[in-house]
Each structure stands twice: as C-alpha cells, then as structure tokens.
C-alpha cells in the first residue's frame, strides 16, 4: 500500500493514498486519470525517482523503497528506461550521441556502445537522421530518439510520462505502438502515464486513477494486430 504526500507552502497534499498494484512484464500498462490524480507520482515511486512515505516498492526483485539515493541511482541506471513528456533530449548532442549517453555511463566499451546506439536508433526508424540535433528534428522524431535512448540499455522497466501529449495523433499513435511493441518483443515492464484517451485502445492493460486512488484495472479487447518489432 503506497502513500505519498507533498507539502508546498505549509499545505499538505496527499498525492497517493494506499495504492497497491502489480505490473507484468511483456505488456504495456497504461495509467490514466485527470491531471493531479497522482499518476505521475506513482510512476516516480515505481521507477525509484522518489521514495514513498509508507509502503514498499519491489522492482526486478529488489525492494526499491529500502534503497539509499545512490543505490536507487544505480538501480535506475542498470534497469530503467525513461521517456518524458518534454522529450528531455540534450540540445548539444546528435541523435546518435543522445542514444549512446546511457551506455557511456554504464561503462559499455565505445565500439559496442556505438553499435548498440545505432541499432536502437534503427529500431525506431531514425538511422537516417542520426547526425541531427534535437532542434533539427520534428516532435515525433524527438520522442522516437528519446525512446531509442530508453531502449538502448535493454531495460527491464520502461517508464513513459505523458509521452504523447506534445505530439499530434499520428505521431502519438506511432509512439504508443512503439512502446507496446517494445513490451511484447523485449519482455520489459512498460508503464505509461497519460491523460490521453486515444491511447486506451493500444494498451494491454488500463489502470484508472482519481484523487490519489486506483479506481479500475481492466484489459481492453484488442482488435489491432501487432507487427513484430
């Protein structure tokens, strides 16, 4: 049972109230709800970005909520991929370099890192744009580079926070399909937070939240066949 509250200017807000859930590997779990419902807080607790006030988080067999800050850093580096709403790419780096950065910090040797970065970029269909900086890429392309950056370390957990809200419907659809295909192909836990209802049809599992509580947990019936990755 996870709880987390924030105190801003002496006003206490309960962002999460006694939430309990399991996420499964190999599927895209979508957490939806109105803004302020606590879904991003849940994501940051599950990914080890922050710690719960009460309750425990287990991820990849590790009790995340018991780790120190430095240990959680190391856990994220080793196991977690992130895709952010605002892309959060480094303006100074080319697409290929963006993707290589996590591998550099994982101390992967240069030649292997470059090869894996190239493969990841190819997987999101952007090999031909590898030399471009974020300013020269479209929104959809930026998010695909960010997905490649999350993917390149072959994470067991992939978290996406509102990955489509800065994109049009076509690009949003592409990005969501990509996330789902990654879940199916790599067997990773893929958790996506969004308030975009268009995503529901593409998710394997939908968790609805409101006021810091989990309201519903369902599996939409899928009609769309998935292409292999």
């Amino acid at each position, binding site marked *: 049972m996870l709880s987390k509250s924030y105190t801003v200017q002496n006003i206490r807000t309960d962002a999460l109230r006694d939430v309990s859930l399991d996420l499964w590997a190999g599927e895209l779990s979508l957490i939806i709800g109105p803004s302020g419902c606590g879904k991003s807080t849940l994501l940051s607790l599950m990914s080890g*970005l922050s710690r719960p006030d009460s309750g425990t988080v287990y991820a990849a067999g590790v009790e995340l909520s018991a780790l120190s800050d430095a240990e959680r850093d190391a856990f994220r580096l080793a196991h977690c991929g992130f895709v952010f709403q605002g892309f*959060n790419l480094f303006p*100074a780096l080319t697409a290929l370099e963006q993707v290589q950065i996590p591998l550099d*910090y994982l101390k992967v040797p240069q030649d292997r890192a470059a090869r894996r970065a190239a493969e990841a970029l190819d997987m999101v269909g952007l090999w031909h744009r590898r030399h471009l900086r974020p300013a020269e890429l479209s929104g959809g392309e930026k998010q695909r580079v960010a997905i490649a*950056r999350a993917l390149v370390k072959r994470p067991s957990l992939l978290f996406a926070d509102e990955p489509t809200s800065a994109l049009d419907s076509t690009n949003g659809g592409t990005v969501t399909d990509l996330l789902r295909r990654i879940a199916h192909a790599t067997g990773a836990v893929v958790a996506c937070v969004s308030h975009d209802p268009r995503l529901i049809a593409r998710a394997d599992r939908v968790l609805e939240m409101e006021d810091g509580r989990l309201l519903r947990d369902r599996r939409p019936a899928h009609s769309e066949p998935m292409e292999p990755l």
Partner: protein
Amino acid sequence: MAVPLARRILVYEWRRFLPATISVAFSGVLMIVQGALLLGIVSANALYVTQSGADLWIGFPGTQSADLGRAIDPGIAANLYMDPRIARVEALLLGAGDWRGARGGGTSVTLVGIDPRPDGVGLSKAMSPPVRVLLQEPGAVLVDETDLDKLATDIGQKAEINGHLVRVVGTTRNLRAMGGVNVVASLGTARMLDSAISASDSVTYYLAKVPEPRNISAVHAHLSSIPGSAGFEIWTAGELAGLSVRYWLLESGAGIGFVFATVIAMLVGTLITSQTLMAAVAASITQYATLRALGVSFPELRKIVIEQSGWVGAVGLGMGLVCSLLAAALARLNDIPFELRAGMMLFSAAVVLSVALVAGLLALRRLRHADPAALLR
C-alpha cells in the same frame, strides 16, 4: 571515446557561458591590474635600493623605508673598508631641496647624492656610466626623464636648488618618485646644495658590494656583531626593499587605501563570476535532472559541472591574462609604475578558478535538494 557531454554542452551553448567567461576575465584583470599598480606605486619607495647594484646597505637603525634614511655615524666605514670580502664601499646621501626653475615658484625635491665614478653602484641601474660621469662637474644634476615636464626643464637647462645654481646634464630612468621628484647629484654637489648634509663626513647609507653571493650573509653577520653596531643597521638589498614596500603597503594610509580597493575589486569580481556561472548552470538544470533520472549519480554530475567551470575559468583567465599584458604594455608606454609579478598572477588565477568551481557546485545544490521528477515536468 565516450560522448564528451560536458564539452558538447559548453561548445553548443557557449552563449550561455559567455557572461561567466567574461566575468572571470574581468575579475582576473581587475585583481592583476590593481595589484600590479599597487606594487608599482609602493615599489617607488624602494627605488633607491632596487635601482642600485649594492648587496648590503648600512643605515640608521630602525629605518622603516629606504627613502626615510637618516645620517649615520661614519665610523662604520673603516670596518667596511677592512673587510676583504667587500669589493667596494660607497656612500649615498639623501637630502632635501627647493627647486626653482623656468616655471617660477618652488618645487620640493629629494636630493640623492651618489658616487659619480663610472663603476659606482649607487643608482647604477638608473643611468648609463657616461651619464654618471657627467655628475663629476660641480653643480651638475640628473632628473628623471618622466619629471622633465613637472620641473619645466630639459637637458642643458639651468635652475636653482636651495639658492645654488645647478645644471641638468642628463636624465635617469625608472626613478619616478611617489609624489615628489628625485634629483640626483654627486656626493659633493649634494653636500653643497643641502646644508643639513653639508658636513664632509655626513652619510645616509653606506653601500657595499660583495662579489661572492655566498659571502653576503657572513659579512652581514660579522658587521652586526662588531662593537658599536647599535649605531647602525645592516640590510641586504632585498631586505631593505621589502621593508620599504611593506611599510608603505601596510603602515601608510595610501597603501592601506589601495589594498582596500584591491580587495573590493576581488570581491566584486568574485560575486559577478559566481552569479553568472550559477545562472549558466541553473539554465541547464533540466538537462542535469534528465541525467539524474537516467540514473547518473550525483558525483558524475558534479564532474560535468566541474569540467565546465574549469573550462570557463581557464578560457576566462586566458582572456584576462592577455588583457593584463596589454595593460602592462600600455603602462610601460606611459611610464606608469606597474609591477606584473608571476606570484600575483598565480594568486589571482587560483582565486578566480576556485570561485568558478565553487559557483558551479553551488548551482548544483538545487538539483540535490529537488525531486528529479519535479524538475522534469
């Protein structure tokens, strides 16, 4: 090679780091130039020592600065002449005069009496031997080339000092005094001009030349131990010069004022540097937060910021150094006392670089205390 993120950010976003770089350069220049001017000005009080070739100076006990020397007992001369390690003994006189020349009215001048032999050591670096021997003519004086305008005179012209006729036979170099004017004459002429030092055995300093540098301390010790040494004091040239500089630096109002101005310059430079660098780092805070989310540890982030601050500091210092050298050249062209010393430049460089590094790390503190998740919104 891994992707050099720190340098990539620095090069790509150089405009963001430019204000910090310029402020590093600015505070470096401010510190170096202020310090060099201060040292240049206070060093003017040690000019008699630094422009002379003597190794040991014998003067009035307790003298606080070379230009404040007083007459001493000439009896010490015998000991100096008898010491075989001393190759040359020479007197130097300091007197005062009232210069009256073409401009009308009087100008107070300091009279410096030296031995006019061509190989004399007193003020030997301020004039060439051919100019020095011109002083052998009674009534001949030298003034500094930078003081010709102040005295409204020129080589070959006549003037009066304390009512006696003198003729300017040449100029000295690097003998510009702080405030006053130095007029150099032979010992005989100086005694004729200033009645206070007119006695034939009146001496302000004895200058001794010790050809073997390793003998200097032994001679120094020997002279200090002879009976009657309470009537004089012995310094090496370096000691007396240092004494004079320190006296004006620390005990005169002018020196303290200048030190204060230098400290202010340092503080202002430091403040601007830290603020601009902190702003530059803070502007990239979402990039650092992204790295945090990706699992990059705080020490690794610190490395990036330290590398960037180091580059900002190094480039800024390079710019500052070039500007300081330009200032030195400009000062030299205008005969402004300007002492650019390596020690001072190293000190300024160390201060500015540490400020840059500390400012960078302070800027990162925000990241440490903030929730990385919140910075990514």
